[in-house]
């Protein structure tokens, strides 16, 4: 590895320590515990809202999708 590359990498790691420590790979979603908890709560909020509004339960294993108005 060239000196220049080593220098760039060390500067980058210094500038972005959190990102540099994360493992790579598209299937991984490494997060610190606070970030993970916040994302989990957000997912549940989105899900609960959808099942309270657009995905209406009609019986066991049966739902109705409420069509939304065209907004785009």
């Amino acid at each position: 590895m060239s000196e220049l590359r080593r220098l760039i990498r060390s500067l980058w790691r210094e500038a972005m320590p959190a990102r540099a420590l994360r493992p790579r790979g598209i299937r991984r979603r490494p997060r610190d515990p606070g970030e993970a908890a916040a994302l989990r709560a957000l997912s549940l909020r989105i899900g609960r809202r959808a099942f309270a509004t657009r995905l209406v339960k009609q019986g066991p294993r049966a739902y109705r999708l409420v069509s939304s108005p065209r907004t785009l």
Partner: protein
Amino acid sequence: MSEDPLLVRARADLAALKDLASPLEVQLRTAAVIARVLGKTGDSVVVVGGSAVSFYTGGAYLSRDVDLVTSVSARRIAEVLPLLGFERHDGAWVHVETDVVVDFPAPPLAGDPARLTRVDTDEGPIQIIGIEDLLVDRLNAVVHWNDTEAREWCIAILALHRDLDSAYLQARAGTEGVAEELQRVTAEASTLGPRLGR
């Protein structure tokens, strides 16, 4: 010779979806139109994979494509999909107006056909793989591929839904060797507040 009215209406229904903002809604309604056309011979069409996760999480998870398992032959699919406005790109079907990507994983369905979820849409009904079978599929990804993303979505699904067939889920998880992981994600999900009612 005039075109089949079923195909004309299906093509118009799909084109009309391009103005919708919700990706989940566009995917489900697209699947319903395809099921209406492919299923007219009595064949089943079932949503599986990421788009099923998307449904059971109420759209919190966004799937890149719609995976449909069907008993319809690949030849018949290749005849019909272009008539509905789809083009073939790298093995998947892409709708030219909505950009919805549809894929057809090889059958059989990796789950119990008696436990499918039915969703009625303006375009007709669509069937989705049973929640228990989907969970087992995702737990396999967690255990065998170390798929931490899938683990999060298992927890979300378990936290959102309580109308699961626990006995069936545990039996399938045991058969697949993912029972311990099921216990762990269930425990984590139980700390996340009330689940949806029946």
